[in-house]
Structure formats: C-alpha cells, structure tokens
C-alpha cells in the first residue's frame, strides 16, 4: 500500500470507523426531520459521501460534531425542499410514520411552515434551535456565525416564525 502524506483522502478503514461512530446520530437527526427511514438512510449516505469528497473541511473542523450537524441539516432540508416540490401539500406520503406520535406531527407541521415562510438560513437556524435543541452558541458554531450575528438572526427568526404561527410551543 502506498501512503500519501498531507492531502490524502480517507482510507476505507478510516471511513468505516467514522461511519460506525457517527452514522447513528446522523440517522436519528435525519429521521426526525424527514420522517421516513428510507429518506433518512439516503441522507446518511449523502452525508458520508460528502465527508469523503470534502475530507479537508471535515478534518479541519475543531469539533467534528458541528460539521456533522451542519451537513446533516443542510442535506435533510434540501431533501425536504425537493420533496415538497414532488409531493404537493395534502398529498404527503404517510407510510413509514407508523410509530410517530404527536411530537413528530408537530415537527412536520413546523418544518412545512418554515419551508414556505423562512429563508434557507432561517430554516437552518430554526431546525438546529427548535428541533435539535441546540443552544444559541452551538447554532452559531455549527453555522459558523459570530455570536453577534446569531443573536440578531435568532431575534428576527422568532418574530417571523411567530407571525407564521410556527414558533414551537413553550419557546420563549
């Protein structure tokens, strides 16, 4: 085997290790957003494919979990956007939701409202903050925003989501 120093991509063994460590949490988060196992696995595959092609950005990350949150959110929201084009409201496929309760229903309703009424950046912030339950500081780290920017963006987002009737209950 030839070993290339520096800019080498992942070996199969490295990818295996990263996948075993991180794929379960990527799947859980994608499943929560996408609602269906098959779609969540599509997202998992896409996240790890991205990790391979963007290995420098992943390896350069001081906190790998923030990279995973950022990419998983991005890919899942993209999938939701293209799904809402394929499946007009009212025709949402409901298979694979058998074990979903009230919380999952509320998540889907929130996401649907956000996809219609918020910018893509606001959708990302709202997802990380309200659905994943990250702190404002963590959202800033994940999206690589300054503390000052995130404070302003979250304030605007809350006002906008409230006006849409899509601010999660119990949030203040």
């Amino acid at each position, binding site marked *: *085997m030839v070993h290339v120093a520096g800019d080498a*991509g*992942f*070996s*199969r063994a490295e*990818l*295996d290790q990263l*996948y*075993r*460590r*991180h*794929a*379960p*949490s990527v*799947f*859980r988060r994608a499943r929560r957003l996408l609602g269906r*196992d098959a779609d969540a*696995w599509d997202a*998992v*595959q896409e996240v*790890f*494919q991205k990790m*391979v*092609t963007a290995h420098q950005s992943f390896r350069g990350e001081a*906190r*790998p*979990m*923030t990279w995973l*949150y950022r990419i998983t959110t991005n890919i899942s929201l993209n999938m939701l956007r293209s799904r809402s084009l394929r499946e007009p409201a009212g025709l949402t496929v409901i298979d694979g939701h058998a074990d979903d309760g009230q919380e999952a229903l509320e998540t889907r309703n929130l996401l649907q409202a956000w996809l219609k009424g918020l910018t893509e950046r606001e959708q990302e912030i709202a997802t990380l903050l309200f659905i*994943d*339950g*990250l*702190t404002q500081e*963590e959202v800033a780290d*994940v999206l690589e925003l300054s503390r000052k920017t995130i404070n302003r963006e979250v304030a605007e987002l809350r006002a906008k989501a409230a006006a849409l009737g899509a601010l999660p209950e119990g949030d203040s």
Partner: protein
Amino acid sequence: MSPHLSALVIDELAAGLPSADAAAHLATCTECQQRLAAVKQASATISAMPAFQQRLDAVTLGEPARRGPWLRLVSIALPVAAALALVVFWPRGDDVLLKGAPTVELIANEKPVMVAKPGDRVTLAVGGAGATHAIVFGVDASGTVTKLWPAGGEAAPIAPGARVSLDVSFEVTPGDLVLLGFFTKTTQPTEPIREAIERSVAGARAPLEVLAPSGFGAVARSRLKVTP
C-alpha cells in the same frame, strides 16, 4: 446546578468524543445520564439495521477519479437496454476450480451485451464455475482501473449459477472497456488486485489489451465495444 447538556454534547458523548465540560454535570445529573443511555441504546439499534452496512458500502472513496468516464454506476436493479463481447481466460497455474471457466458479462434484456452505445443501461453478471466469491474491475482506454463490484474492500459472495446478476446497473458512456473478474473460494481484499491490474496495464501494449494478473484466483475477461 448547571443547565442540562445539549443534544449536541450528548451526541458527542455517545460517539465517544471527549467533552471535558460535560463530565462534571453528567456525574451528578440522572436526567442527562438517562438521555445519554437512551441515545446509546438507539445507536445500537440503528447500527443493527440492514441499511446501516448497505449505506456504508455505497459510499465510494476517491471518486470521480477512480470511476472511469466510460461506465457510470446508476443504481440498483434498473431495467436495462443494450449488448458485449466475451472472452474467458483460464490461466494455467491459477487456483483451478471445477465446472469449467468463470464468466463476467454485461447484460441487457437477459442477454450478454457485446456492443453498446452511450446511454444504454447494462447490469453486471458473473458465473462462478464453482467459486464462491468474486471481484470485478473495469479498465478503459486511458488505463483507468475501476472496481465495479462489490462496493466493499473484500471479495463478496456470489450465488451458484452460470449467469448470476450482481444487482448493479451501469449507464454506458463513450469509450470501449474491458472487464476483469476474479473468482475464489474464499474472500480476498480488492486493493492488491487493483494494484496488480495497474501494473499489468502499464506493461500492456495498450490499456484495453490488459490481461488479468495471476495469483488472485480464476479469472474471466470480457470486452465491451461502445459505438458512438
């Protein structure tokens, strides 16, 4: 008491990543201990799902460089529409298997494809001739060596039969190609074979005249002509 651990920190702990600030809180908070245990439990369940390994196998390393411009993987078990010349080599001195020679073919409409045009869809099929494991590589006119099957880094099991579909479909792109199949009765790693093929390509008069290197089991070779 400090605020509860965030979902991100719980994920880090469940993944075995260091999270120094979390230790003190976790030691004294049963609620966060329970959340962490629940996430670990869910991770174990997810890791045991069949899709877990399948999706890992589907992630490709080092593309697009390793995936030739001549054959593009499209998806699993698509309907197909196209035809390929087939030459089987049975080198002396290799692990001799029973039941004649193994084969590697591209298939469309349940027939071997000898000539195809860009855009055609073909599936990969092998006949193991008594072997239980296979690996298939492709070589294009530029000498690029691409593993076509399996997705993982080891020879994968094949079903017995003269023409067993490998459940992988390709879209033909411009340029002829050669398929090389390697057949054994045990598994073996794919990378040493790739390296041997690359040496073999370097020694061939032209890349498409490459012969399958010996020492990796019985071999089959076939060639696809792609017309404009």
